[in-house]
């Protein structure tokens, strides 16, 4: 007889659908788009606005955009955060913005804004995935 305190109910495996792959990928590339393609219009627009404005404010505050080959472990972590912004990061690197010559005290906020915008976008991509598999309304 199974002991109810030790047995775990395992959730049935979620089927892989096109949307469950597409939503987080598009959501990473364009912040909020993972929600928009699933017709979560208000959520998608709020996410898009929040992450894009946060990233752009970071750039306007002379924040630094990390490169993949920073060398230092903290630079690598900064890159992981930055790359979460997806298309915003790619465009910024293509335009060679975010050189990060910190000239005033609050410029460091800019760097943190850019990193956090990317990290928040990772959360949003995961949320878009949860909506796609039906785990969240």
């Amino acid at each position, binding site marked *: 007889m199974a002991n109810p305190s030790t047995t775990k109910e395992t959730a049935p495996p979620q089927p892989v659908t096109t949307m469950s792959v597409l939503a987080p990928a598009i959501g990473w590339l364009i912040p909020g788009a993972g929600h928009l393609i699933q017709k979560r219009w208000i*959520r998608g627009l*709020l*996410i898009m606005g*929040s*992450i894009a*404005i*946060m990233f752009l*404010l970071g750039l*306007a*505050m*002379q924040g630094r955009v990390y490169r993949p080959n920073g060398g230092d472990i903290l630079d690598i972590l900064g890159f992981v955060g930055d790359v979460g912004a997806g298309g915003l990061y790619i465009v910024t690197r293509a335009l060679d913005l975010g050189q990060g010559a910190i*000239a*005033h*005290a*609050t410029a460091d*906020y*800019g760097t*943190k*804004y850019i990193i*956090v*915008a990317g990290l*928040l976008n990772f*959360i*949003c991509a*995961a*949320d878009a995935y949860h909506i796609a598999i039906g785990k*969240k*309304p």
Partner: protein
Amino acid sequence: MNLQLSHFSSAVLFAVFASVVFGITQRSTSREQIRYGLYCFAMFVGGVFVAGWVMWMLRR
């Protein structure tokens, strides 16, 4: 462009955007999302004031 915000306005703007995303992603219904977003914002801004007073006391 060189935007120079104060420490406080930087922290409040950060709180606004982070709270919006936390509210949307961490709760399911619209009502819960708004409540959780406001809760996060209050915690962020409250934390700023607490940290400010702690630094003020340490400086004395």
